[in-house]
């Protein structure tokens, strides 16, 4: 049936790893990505299994045992990380606080990711007027200081976990839109997009099955960056008293509540601060790693 002999010797042997295998190899060879992934994984498990892991009720106050120091500063194993100014177990609050931080990070990044990706891909793919409108909206958004707007909105609506998540989700889409627009512009000029259109594929099909898989790596990187961004903003808002309201355990709130005692009991600030730092570091390392691992397609 073959009309031409396959004179190409390479036709006989098509070997070599599939893209999936090469990706796996690169992932396990990347230390930053591994470290970030493991730390994030542990924190995620801690957040999910918080009720099983926490030694005490994070809301239970005990005014008899206020500001007990942690074990390494001469405390007891009853409260491994000591207690706060209301006698609540610090480790338990830290564990429950992971839930708040991660939930805000994940949901806010999801909301803004959906908004920003839809806008960016539409702008990049359709161009013209759509692009002009989206670019204008991005500029408007970039002209607004996030913290100030978030503060104002929270001050008007009252602070709660839901309000903080929604406000951050509606504010952090700018980077998604910018990055997705640029990536889409780059990909839509490729000939496989023209080929799919010449085949008769519908616009949603072209976007979802030809363009999205090729810009997903950029999307993942922005997701991780914005997650870290949202977590830090929540901490900042809670620290200013306009984020998550007490007695909900939140790392930013813990720093805020500890700041009055900072000179005498510095660990009240240092412990939640250090965990916050670790989480953001892990997320950023993972984002960096994902970019390294996925960006160049033919790198060995």
């Amino acid at each position, binding site marked *: *049936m073959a009309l031409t002999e396959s004179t190409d010797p390479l036709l006989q042997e098509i070997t070599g790893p599939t893209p999936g295998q090469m990706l796996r190899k690169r992932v396990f060879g990347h230390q930053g990505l591994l470290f970030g992934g493991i730390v994030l994984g542990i924190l995620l498990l801690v957040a999910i299994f918080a009720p099983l892991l926490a030694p005490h009720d994070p809301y239970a106050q005990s005014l008899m045992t206020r500001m007990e120091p942690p074990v390494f500063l001469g405390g007891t194993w009853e409260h491994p990380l000591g207690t706060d100014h209301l006698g609540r177990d610090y480790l338990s609050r830290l564990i429950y606080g992971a839930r708040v931080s991660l939930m805000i990070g994940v949901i806010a990044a999801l909301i803004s990711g959906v908004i920003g990706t839809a806008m960016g891909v539409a702008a990049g793919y359709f161009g013209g007027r759509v692009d002009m409108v989206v670019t204008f909206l991005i500029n408007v958004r970039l002209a607004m200081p996030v913290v100030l707007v978030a503060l104002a909105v929270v001050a008007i609506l009252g602070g709660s976990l839901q309000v903080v998540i929604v406000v951050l989700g509606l504010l952090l889409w700018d980077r998604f839109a910018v990055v997705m627009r640029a990536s889409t512009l780059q990909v839509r000029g490729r000939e496989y997009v023209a080929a799919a259109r010449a085949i008769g594929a519908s616009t949603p099909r072209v976007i979802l099955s030809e363009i999205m898989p090729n810009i997903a790596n950029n999307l993942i990187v922005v997701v991780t960056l914005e997650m870290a961004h949202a977590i830090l903003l929540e901490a900042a808002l809670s620290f200013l008293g306009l984020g998550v309201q007490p007695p909900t355990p939140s790392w930013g709130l813990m720093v805020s509540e500890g700041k009055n005692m900072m000179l005498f009991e510095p660990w009240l600030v240092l412990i939640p601060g250090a965990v916050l730092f670790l989480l953001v570091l892990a997320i950023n390392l993972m984002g960096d790693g994902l970019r390294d691992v996925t960006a160049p397609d*033919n790198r060995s």
Partner: protein
Amino acid sequence: MSQQKQNAVLELRNVTKTYRVKQGLFGKARPLTAVNDVSLSLPRGEVLGLVGESGCGKSTLAKILLGLEMPSSGQVLVDGQEIGAQDRLSLARRIQPIFQDPYSSLNPRKSIFDIVSLPLRVHGVGQQADWDREVRKILDIVGLPARVMNTYPSQMSGGQRQRVAIARALIMKPEIVICDEPTSALDVSVQSQILNLLGDLRREFGLTYLFISHDLAVVEHLATRVAVMYLGRIVEEADVAGLFDAARHPYTQALLKSVLTPEPGLGVPDTQLGMAYPNPIDPPSGCHFHPRCPMMTEHCRKVAPRSLPTPQGRVECHLFDPESPMTKAEVA
């Protein structure tokens, strides 16, 4: 000629495509005529070679034929029906492209099976089992082993990728294939394989090709008719023998002279074209070719030449216009 027209599977009538190009932020949009009043007819089973320099509008013409761009004016007829009147799916069944760069025409995230079966899935032809069978069949036809189905484009060489692209174009059994420089990104040794494959497939399936290229040797090898394009216009059209043996238009002659020969010591041929390709936003007056033409006269600067029939086709040049004031003096 009229007989040919009736058999024409693809016909272009005075097709013009104008883009509006904005220069700078506050600059006024100026028209760029990428394709200027092109009329071509392509009889069934023939191969029309479309030749021209980069930027002369070849690829824009290909996009119009594929329905990816709409012409600003003029008509494109497929089997006598206008392109705009057909829905995209039925047009896609008739006309399929093979693109220039096989490194960019295959989605790197998709397996070869996904790429080749995409037309079947888009058109809703058959079920999973049929797709598998069809893909195996077409891969065999283009000379690829069936086991490449599960590999990815990055694992293949340029020639193999181009075979995959050909398989994708042919799996729906189209009538017309638009080959947009299908060999220019390939090694010379692989080029001939792909060209032979295209030639074999044409005979096997009775395909009609529009073969776009800047490589005259490739066109001579495959085409039955040749059209030469310059700044969006067809300046000369003739059958292969007529064009390669007796090129009329000075531009065609220069192109023919520019072909590199394997003869050592000859050096790089001098086309005498000298000046760079003109800016299509600001095309030269009169005959668009006059600033580069070795036979240019005052008349060419002022008046655009008209299309003149020749024994093998037609040409747009004052040299062959009996009514042009320069003809007698120059040709004699």
